[in-house]
């Protein structure tokens, strides 16, 4: 497929890296191997911070025009995430296929995505979620930045177009904000968009499924490089700290009010 080159002044081509993650609301069991979660019965959902990255990318496109491309590795239910991104306004979706199933190290993601980014060439910014709950071997944005030799910034809460640059706001903790300006290609780990991720109605997602196709890109042979060698995964030893309050809502409410009263904080 021929890539449309954007000529309009100020228009930006933004690539959004998305991924699937075990739903944290579910019970997570350790697999028999002892070094991964049992993936057979968990539900996989889109990483929440990637959704924030998509929202920020769509806001940039709405402001200055251009193109939003979403890309993800082939993982359980990823098509749902990609089609819903199209339904929200992304122009293209790409899936990297041929990746071994299981716990994908972040540095493998980083290298595969970097291969695609190199082959695509003409993008201006790559946005992805600030973190994912299983990225033991580092956060994606920094790894991609270092792989490509492109500057990156993480914990980003705003990326606003300014001419051909992006003005980036990072959260330094405790509410302190720092600004910087990216004058060239940049890789961003998004903490929160300027607004909560938009909602894609199911009818629009269905429409995206019937009118658009997900492009594929073959995973290539990768030298993974050194990483943490996982010896075991296990649930935290419950320190059993919390005393559970038994009873129906009326009884528990009474106990809670009693505890607060004992501290002298309610009459």
């Amino acid at each position, binding site marked *: 497929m021929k890539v449309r080159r954007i000529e309009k002044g100020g228009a930006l081509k933004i690539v959004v890296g998305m991924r699937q993650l075990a739903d*944290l609301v579910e019970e997570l069991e350790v697999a028999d191997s002892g070094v991964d979660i049992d993936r057979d019965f968990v539900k996989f959902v889109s990483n*929440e911070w990637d959704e924030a990255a998509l929202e920020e990318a769509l806001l940039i496109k709405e402001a200055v025009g251009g193109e939003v491309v979403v890309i993800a590795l082939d993982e359980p239910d990823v098509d749902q995430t990609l089609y819903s991104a199209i339904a929200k306004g992304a122009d293209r979706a790409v899936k990297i296929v041929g990746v071994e199933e299981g716990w994908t190290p972040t540095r493998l993601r980083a290298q595969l995505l970097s291969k695609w980014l190199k082959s695509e060439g003409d993008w201006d910014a790559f946005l992805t979620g600030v973190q994912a709950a299983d990225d033991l071997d580092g956060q994606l944005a920094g790894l991609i*930045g270092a792989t490509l030799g492109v500057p990156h910034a993480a914990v980003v809460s705003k990326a606003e177009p300014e001419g051909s640059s992006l003005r980036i706001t990072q959260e330094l903790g405790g509410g302190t904000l720092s600004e910087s300006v990216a004058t060239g290609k940049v890789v961003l780990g998004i903490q929160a968009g300027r607004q909560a991720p938009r909602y894609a109605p199911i009818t629009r997602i269905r429409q995206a499924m019937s009118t658009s196709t997900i492009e594929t890109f073959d995973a290539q042979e990768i030298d993974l490089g050194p990483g943490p060698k996982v010896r075991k995964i296990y649930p935290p030893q419950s320190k059993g700290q919390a005393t559970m309050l038994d009873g129906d809502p009326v009884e528990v409410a009474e*106990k809670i009010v009693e505890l607060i009263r004992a*501290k002298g904080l309610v009459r």
Partner: protein
Amino acid sequence: MSKDVLVINERVQGENPDLTFELIGKAKEIAGILGGSVGVVVIGDLSGTEAFGAADRIYTVEHDALTSGYSSQVWEEAVLAVVESVQPKLILFGTGTIGIDLAGSIAKRVGGPIASYVIDLAVEGDDVVATSQLYGGKLLAESVLEGDTVVASVIAGSFPSEAGKSGGSPEVVSVSAPSSLGSLSLIPGSVKEPDKTGVDITTSDLLVSVGRGVGSQANIEMLQELADAFKVPLSASRPVIDQGWLPKPHQVGKSGKKVKPKVYLAFGISGAPEHLEGMRSSEMIIACNTDPKAPIFEVAHYGTTLDLFDLVPEILEKLEA
């Protein structure tokens, strides 16, 4: 390659974070086992380095690009310059913005392994063993970091900070600024202090706090009523703020306020490390969460797995009685 441990001080302006002292304390223990020394990397604002008396050396980098603001590119080049000159065995970042920003890229550039979300570290022979929190604290992972230089990014509150605070007079070593700082494409700008307007959740003895479990903005009303009945402010976890359900000053946690009330009532909050960082030292924590495995119960003193929508009206009823 040395046996040294290098601590990256995550401070752009303001006070040195307590986390740096936690890291120095642990670094001393590890360097003691390895037979190396402890260095602290201080970038940008060089005031306040006398606080790092527990370290053997303080490494600084001086350059115009480092005098104001923060850019990951600037910091990455400066940290890398120190790393290349010291060639440490272990580099310790905190899992703050700078750790999330740079720990991975520094590891990649030095060709060493990294473990994120670390809550414990040990030495086994030539290797560092890291225990990390995954899945928002629901599982732990133990991993071995092998190599000449390895990197760990540590969650705040994992180690006592006292051990990193003892006195001494470390040598200050100025590492020459890398030439890469002369050609930047991520230019540092201004740093903005937190907005001081709006509700102050840090002074209340009791906080009613609400998380994403509340489900919608409309449902916040019920928790607001409860807070009003106690005559205290309503506080919240980050997703509640990011959804626009409550303004930013209500946020508790790493990127919000640190609170230490006598009683912290948590409704529908899972207890992710970034939330715990802001409230774990509350005198008494009472948590309501339908998931009995929610990490919040690890820090709570009292808990219930009742549905908040069943419980809150009953508490209100009790208070009105």
